[in-house]
C-alpha cells in the first residue's frame, strides 16, 4: 500500500504579529487556532477523531473534550509537524482515523510580558508544568485531595462499577486468583504461590474497594520486539505473527474527567481493532489484557465485547479464564503475578507472540492462532488494542 492520494490537507491557519508578540498565549491561543482551522476547513470539533500535540495529545484532547482514535505526541523538535503529517496520512490511509487535528502555540515573548504584568520575574509562567511541560490542571483539581496514584483512580472506577452493576469484591478477586494459576505455570513469574479469593480479601485495603492483591506487582522488567513486512517475515527464523487489526482511543487524562467511570475507551479501540481484523471475541484464543488492577481486566472483558457492559462480574464467575479454561487470559501471569515495571504493555505483546508461536511451555494454549494484546495507559485513559494472528489466521 502506498500513501499516495490517500490523504489531503484540508484546513490551515496561523497567528503572527509584526511586533513579534501575540496577545493570547497557551491554551487560549491554541483554541483560537482550532476555531480558525475548523472554519477554514468547514469542519466542526465533532469531526475531529485524531490529535497531534507535541506536549501531550491526551491533555490537549481532554481540554477540548475530544475523544480521539488517533493520538501522537511524538517529539522530534522543529520537524515534528512534518512527522505528524506523515503519521496522520498513514493513519488516514489505513482507516485508523478520518480527521486529524495538529495544533501548536508557543509564545516566549507574550508569556514573559504576562508574567511581569502579574508581578512575577517573568522567568516562569505560573502553575506547575505537566508531565510534558504543558498546562497541568491535575495539580489544581486533583492532587490537593490526596488520591493515591495510580491505584486511587482505579479504586474510584471499581466503586462506580460496583454501585452501578452490583460487581462484588469476590468477583474482582477471582481475576487475581485465576491469573495466579497461570503464574504458577511460569517459572519466570514473580508471584507463583497458590492464591484464594479469601487471601485477596484478607490482604491490606489500599484504596477501597481495592486490596493489595487486587494491585499489580512493582518489579523491574524490560523487553523488545521487531516489526517488519509480512513478505520479509515469511523468510525469517520464527513463524510470523501478523498484525490483523489495531486501534487506539483516549478520552481523558484525569480520572475526574473520565466520561463514565464504568466504561473505558477500550469500548472504542476494541471493536475497531476486531473489525479491522475480521474476528469476533469468540475467535480469540489468548487474551492479554493490561491488568494493572483486577478492575482493569474486568473492564477489558466488557469493553472488548467478551460480555455485555456490566456483566464482567458474573462473566469471571462463569467463564474460566485460567489454565484449561474457555478464555485463557494473561497467560504469563499478568501484571498481577508475572511482572509490572510501571509500563507493562511490552509484555502483552511478547506473551501473545510466544503463545502464537507455540513457545509458551507449560502454559501453552493448544493451537492458539489468534491473540489480543490490549494495553491501558494513564488512569483508564488511553486504550490500544492489537489483534495478532498466525499464518493460519490470515
Amino acid at each position, binding site marked *: 500500500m502506498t500513501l499516495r492520494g490517500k490523504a489531503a490537507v484540508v484546513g490551515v491557519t496561523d497567528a503572527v504579529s509584526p511586533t513579534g508578540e501575540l496577545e493570547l498565549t497557551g*491554551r487560549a491561543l491554541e483554541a483560537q487556532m482550532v476555531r480558525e482551522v475548523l472554519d477554514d476547513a468547514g469542519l466542526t470539533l465533532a469531526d475531529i477523531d485524531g490529535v497531534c500535540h507535541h506536549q501531550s495529545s491526551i491533555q490537549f484532547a481532554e481540554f*477540548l473534550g475530544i475523544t480521539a482514535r488517533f493520538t501522537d505526541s511524538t517529539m522530534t523538535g522543529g520537524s515534528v509537524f512534518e512527522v505528524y503529517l506523515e503519521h496522520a496520512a498513514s493513519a488516514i490511509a489505513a482507516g485508523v482515523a478520518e480527521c486529524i487535528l495538529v495544533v501548536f502555540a508557543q509564545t516566549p515573548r507574550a508569556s514573559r510580558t504576562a508574567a511581569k504584568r502579574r508581578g512575577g520575574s517573568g522567568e516562569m509562567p505560573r502553575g506547575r508544568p505537566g508531565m510534558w511541560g504543558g498546562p497541568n490542571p491535575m495539580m489544581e483539581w486533583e492532587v490537593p485531595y490526596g488520591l*493515591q496514584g495510580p491505584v486511587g483512580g482505579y479504586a474510584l472506577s471499581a466503586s*462506580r462499577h*460496583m454501585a452501578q452493576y452490583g460487581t462484588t469484591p469476590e468477583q474482582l478477586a477471582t481475576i487475581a486468583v485465576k491469573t495466579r494459576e497461570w503464574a504458577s505455570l511460569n517459572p519466570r513469574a514473580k508471584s507463583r504461590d497458590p492464591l484464594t479469593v479469601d487471601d485477596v480479601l484478607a490482604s491490606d485495603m489500599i484504596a477501597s474497594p481495592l486490596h493489595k492483591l487486587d494491585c499489580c506487582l512493582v518489579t523491574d522488567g524490560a523487553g523488545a520486539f521487531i516489526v517488519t513486512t509480512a513478505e520479509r517475515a515469511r523468510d525469517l527464523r520464527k513463524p510470523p505473527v501478523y498484525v490483523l487489526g489495531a486501534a487506539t482511543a483516549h478520552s481523558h487524562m484525569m480520572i475526574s474527567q473520565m466520561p463514565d467511570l464504568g466504561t473505558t475507551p477500550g469500548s472504542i479501540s476494541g471493536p475497531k481493532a476486531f473489525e479491522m481484523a475480521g474476528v469476533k471475541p469468540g475467535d480469540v484464543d489468548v487474551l492479554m489484557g493490561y491488568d494493572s488492577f483486577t478492575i482493569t481486566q474486568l473492564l477489558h472483558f466488557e469493553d472488548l465485547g467478551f460480555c455485555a457492559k456490566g456483566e464482567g462480574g458474573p462473566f469471571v464467575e462463569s467463564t474460566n479464564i485460567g489454565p484449561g479454561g474457555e478464555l485463557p487470559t494473561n497467560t504469563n501471569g499478568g501484571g498481577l503475578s508475572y511482572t509490572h515495571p510501571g509500563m507493562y504493555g511490552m509484555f502483552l505483546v511478547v506473551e501473545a507472540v510466544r503463545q502464537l508461536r507455540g513457545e509458551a511451555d507449560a502454559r501453552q494454549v493448544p493451537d492458539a492462532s489468534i491473540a489480543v494484546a490490549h494495553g491501558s495507559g494513564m488512569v483508564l485513559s488511553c486504550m490500544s488494542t492489537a489483534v495478532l494472528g498466525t499464518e493460519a489466521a490470515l
Partner: protein
Amino acid sequence: MARIEPEATEVTDAFWDATREQRYLVQWCGACGTPIFYPREVCPQCLSADALEWRESSGAGTVYAVSVQHRPANPTMVDRVPYVVALVEVDAGGGQAQTVRVMSNVVNCEPESVHVGDAVALTWEPLSDGRNLPQFEPAT
C-alpha cells in the same frame, strides 16, 4: 502538616478568590449554556471564549464514586489516613438540574460510611493564604 495547596491560574483566579468568602463558583458558557469543569480558556462544547461566566453553586452534591485511602498519597496526608476521596456531582448553579463532577474529600463522618449516591453538602477547609479548599460532608 498542611496539604498540597492548589495553585491558581489566570483562568481560575476568580474561582479561588470566591472561596475566600466560601462561595463555590462554576464556570458556564453563556453562548451554548453549558456548565464547564474544570474551568478553562474556552468552552469545550462550542469553542466560545467570549461568553464564559461564573455562577454560584448551592453546594449540594451527590457522590458519584468513592474510595477510602488507607495509605497517604503523599507525606502531607499521613495524619489524615484513612480519608475519603470522592467524585461528587455538584450543583452547577444554573437553576436547573445540571451538575459538574469534581474530585474532593468527604469529611466529618466515618470514612467507610460514604457510598455512591449519598447526598453531600459543601464545607470548607482553610488554606494557608486565606483561600478555602472545597470539601463535602454528609447532607443533613
